[in-house]
């Protein structure tokens, strides 16, 4: 809900907000420039009477003296019937030059507050300030939620590149934007007189003044009593007007000064409303607070970046969410389908179920498990279709499901059924589906069908489950799911390095380039000097379709698109269709593949150390992270292979990274040598350093086989027990990430 609000409001207002922000940022320079040009004497140096005396020497026809918030002294004068304004040196009273307000600044100011459209424009600007406030607040809420609470708000960020930029910059500027928005709303409210500004409280014009010859301006006690730093404005009496008086305005109040005896008349101190108004005005404009003005200006400059990254984030999210045709509203639907998917294949099954249920005459609502509503009023059926990630963990579209489930209002009329997707080769087959099934039952939901599982996207098993669902509904339900072949691109092998033949673990590092596309798109890419690769980062996945198969196999990427090549590290498995195919490729051979983003698995931003742990081909993405560690943050690599003579993957590269500082330390363990060891042994052997690094905020990224990952988690739990930490806690803080296969 909060996210939709944030996206929708942001998208609608983005362009106008950018106009406001850029004009505001330029205007923010004014107070600082003013201050640069002003001589500001220290408090207590001289009074307004002294200043007026100095001014009188150079400007006999002075009519008004003004001190701007930044300290510039302006004198309005009449010389032989010609009026003018000069900036004046307060120390001498001598003119510095004529004061010519910049027409550009005036134009910009009108653009900023009214889009040059006067009253309707001012209303729009006020509404935009309100929108900015909503964006800032919803942004803070989303950020806090995403980082797991206020305590972690300064913590490392994850997500795609644009998401990270959005959150990273947003976190820095949000308070500035909040202040600008709040003060802007106030100023708009004052303009439209929804709020008082205290300006109506003027002192009464004095009815009685002393008679006699006017005294010299330097001799007036009321002016002698005001220090220059409290001074605002002094308006001289009109020549030839007998009842005329000086009007004096200071930071504390306003009043009149008798020109004969110099008494302060009808003085009215500023009330709370007036001074509050003034402060808010200064907080918004930075007048007299040039440093704040510059800070707010810098924050405002981020708005274009925030608009672009925000829009891109929205677009990415929208694109990654499979389109469900004819989706009903959550509260109107008879059947709810919740989907937990890591790489979208489960969404395909969900769409088939959605269509079949719709054809059977039901109103169906399909959503990600993370988008669990607070209730489903009309629901008769609740179907949960979910994959499992890693070692029984929820897939990315279901990560918040278990935490949110207790808030879902139990509907006694609803029956649920959970269908798990997975691969029986893995020990925690459909582990998360089991958890979800148990959790729903524990919350008091009625289980209509026992948990079913689908092994390796089996169409037959899905159809069987569909028959059971049909029986339940009392309708004929035929679920015929044919996996949709994802849209792929063609890549060509340009380099391969082979390892591990001697230790029965043939492993290759394969580098591909994009095959140039035909037509306009391809020509345009070449013209722009692009490498033609789709956008991806190290740690994302590439789905490869071996010839004759519609089911992709996923490999972790060891390069980012900016590197100019797509690199993976593949071990040949005896019965692996895809790995056999890849190992059989010669340079020049082609593959069909697509990119699957996997933003959770990558080093977080920030200066904290990164501990990379892997075994076998798990080194691929880890080596990629190190290659791209050009900022030379501390990175420690623990890796396990079989024999340094045969399968020391990336050995030459790692040596180079150690030499140039991209890699801080390398700890390699080999199992098939004398006194062989596994990587978890290396980790245990380094317990004190490990403890120290993690206690200091280090992040752990684990990549490799499931068994290894389990061993590492046990080893770290052991190591961290003495400092009261464990892997579970680190996972919750987002400091422990696994990419296992």
């Amino acid at each position, binding site marked *: 809900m909060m996210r939709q609000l944030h996206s929708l409001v942001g998208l609608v207002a983005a362009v106008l907000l950018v106009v406001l922000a850029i004009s505001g940022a330029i205007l923010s320079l004014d107070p600082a420039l003013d201050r640069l040009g002003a001589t500001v004497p220290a408090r207590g140096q001289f009074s307004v009477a002294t200043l007026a005396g100095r001014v009188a020497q150079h400007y006999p026809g002075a009519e*008004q003296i*003004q001190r701007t918030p930044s300290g510039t002294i302006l004198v*309005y004068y*009449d010389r032989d*019937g010609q*009026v003018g*304004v000069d900036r004046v040196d307060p120390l001498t009273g001598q003119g510095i030059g004529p004061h010519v*307000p910049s*027409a550009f600044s*005036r134009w910009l100011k*009108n653009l900023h507050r009214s889009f040059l459209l006067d009253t309707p424009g001012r209303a729009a600007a006020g509404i935009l300030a309100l929108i900015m406030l909503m964006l800032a607040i919803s942004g803070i809420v989303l950020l806090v939620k995403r980082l797991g609470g206020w305590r972690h708000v300064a913590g490392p960020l994850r997500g795609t590149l644009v998401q990270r930029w959005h959150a990273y910059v947003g976190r820095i500027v949000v308070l500035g934007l909040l202040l600008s928005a709040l003060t802007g709303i106030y100023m708009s409210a004052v303009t439209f*007189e929804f709020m008082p500004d205290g*300006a*109506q409280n*003027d002192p009464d*014009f004095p009815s009685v003044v002393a008679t006699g010859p006017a005294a010299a301006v330097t001799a007036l006690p009321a002016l002698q009593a005001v220090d220059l730093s409290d001074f605002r404005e002094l308006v001289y009496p*009109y020549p030839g*007007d*007998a009842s005329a008086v000086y009007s004096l305005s200071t930071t504390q109040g306003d009043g009149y000064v008798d020109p004969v005896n110099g008494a302060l008349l009808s003085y009215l101190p500023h009330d709370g409303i007036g001074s509050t108004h003034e402060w808010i005005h200064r907080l918004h404009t930075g007048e007299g607070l040039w440093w704040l003005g510059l800070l707010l200006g810098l924050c405002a400059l981020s708005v274009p970046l925030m608009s672009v990254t925000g829009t891109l984030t929205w677009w990415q999210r929208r694109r990654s969410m499979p389109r469900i045709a004819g989706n009903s509203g959550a509260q109107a639907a008879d059947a709810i389908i919740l989907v937990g998917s890591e790489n979208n294949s489960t969404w395909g099954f969900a769409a088939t179920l959605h269509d079949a249920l719709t054809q059977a005459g039901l109103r169906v609502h399909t959503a990600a498990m993370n988008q669990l509503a607070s209730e489903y009023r009309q629901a008769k059926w609740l179907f949960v279709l979910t994959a499992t990630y890693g070692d029984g963990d929820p897939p990315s579209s279901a990560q918040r499901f278990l935490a949110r489930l207790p808030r879902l209002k139990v509907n006694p009329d609803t029956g649920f059924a959970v269908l798990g997707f997975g691969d029986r080769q893995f020990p925690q087959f459909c582990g998360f589906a089991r958890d979800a099934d148990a959790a729903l039952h524990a919350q008091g939901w009625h289980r209509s069908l026992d948990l079913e599982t689908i092994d390796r996207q089996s169409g037959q098993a899905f159809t069987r489950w569909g028959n059971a669902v049909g029986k339940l509904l009392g309708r004929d339900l035929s679920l015929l799911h044919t996996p949709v072949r994802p849209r792929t691109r063609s890549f060509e092998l340009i380099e391969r390095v082979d390892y591990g033949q001697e230790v029965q673990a043939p492993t290759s590092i394969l580098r591909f380039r994009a095959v140039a596309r035909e037509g306009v798109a391809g020509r345009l890419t070449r013209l722009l000097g692009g490498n033609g690769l789709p956008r991806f980062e190290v740690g994302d996945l590439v789905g490869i379709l071996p010839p004759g198969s519609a089911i992709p196999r996923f490999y972790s990427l060891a390069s980012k698109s900016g590197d100019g090549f797509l690199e993976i590290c593949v071990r040949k498995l005896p019965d692996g269709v895809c790995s056999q195919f890849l190992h059989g490729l010669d340079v020049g051979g082609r593959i069909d593949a697509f990119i699957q983003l996997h933003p959770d698995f990558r080093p977080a931003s920030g200066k904290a150390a990164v501990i990379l742990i892997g075994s076998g081909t798990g080194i691929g993405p880890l080596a990629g992270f190190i290659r791209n560690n050009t900022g030379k943050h501390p990175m420690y690599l623990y890796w396990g292979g079989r024999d340094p003579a045969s399968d020391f993957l990336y050995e030459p590269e790692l040596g180079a990274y150690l030499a140039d500082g991209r890699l801080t330390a390398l700890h390699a363990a080999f199992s098939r040598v004398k006194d062989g060891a596994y990587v978890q042994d290396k980790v245990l052997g380094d317990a004190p350093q490990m403890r120290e690094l993690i206690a200091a905020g280090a992040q752990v990224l684990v990549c490799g086989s499931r068994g290894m990952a389990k061993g590492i988690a046990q080893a770290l739990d052991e190591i961290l027990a003495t400092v009261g930490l464990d892997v579970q806690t680190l996972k919750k803080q987002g400091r422990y990430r696994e990419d296992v296969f």
Partner: protein
Amino acid sequence: MNKTAASLLLVGALALPALADARPVTLTTQMKDYGGDGAYLAIYVTDAKGQYKKTLWVSGKKAKYYKNLRDWARGSGMKASEFDGVSGASVGSGRTLKVTVEVADALIDAGYEIRVDSAVEDMRDHPGEVRAPLTTAGAGKPVAGRGYVKSLTYTM
């Protein structure tokens, strides 16, 4: 502006008894290129000592800025009844304001004068920047202003 003038005349016609001895006076106010936002103007009649008598015209729609038209504000008390039906939009830099108002015969050739107060946002106020004796002889003769007004001419 013709429309305003016409409607003013209409108001005048309806209020005929009160304005029995009045005549239409056309005020032409030519502004300087002072290079700022639209100017607020108060055109009003005072006696020779500057005592406020009557408002002829007020330019500028936001009443909260009227206090910057200082002398007029003080004299009229900014009471809406004082400028009811004789106000309009602010006048831009270099523009000309031309309005026709009813002026009582008793104020003409009787030692009264027309004064103009002006104010522009972020620029100084100019109270009484124009002072023109309200006489039949003075009609048609432009009087220069000290501030934002280049000249004021009235014809009757």
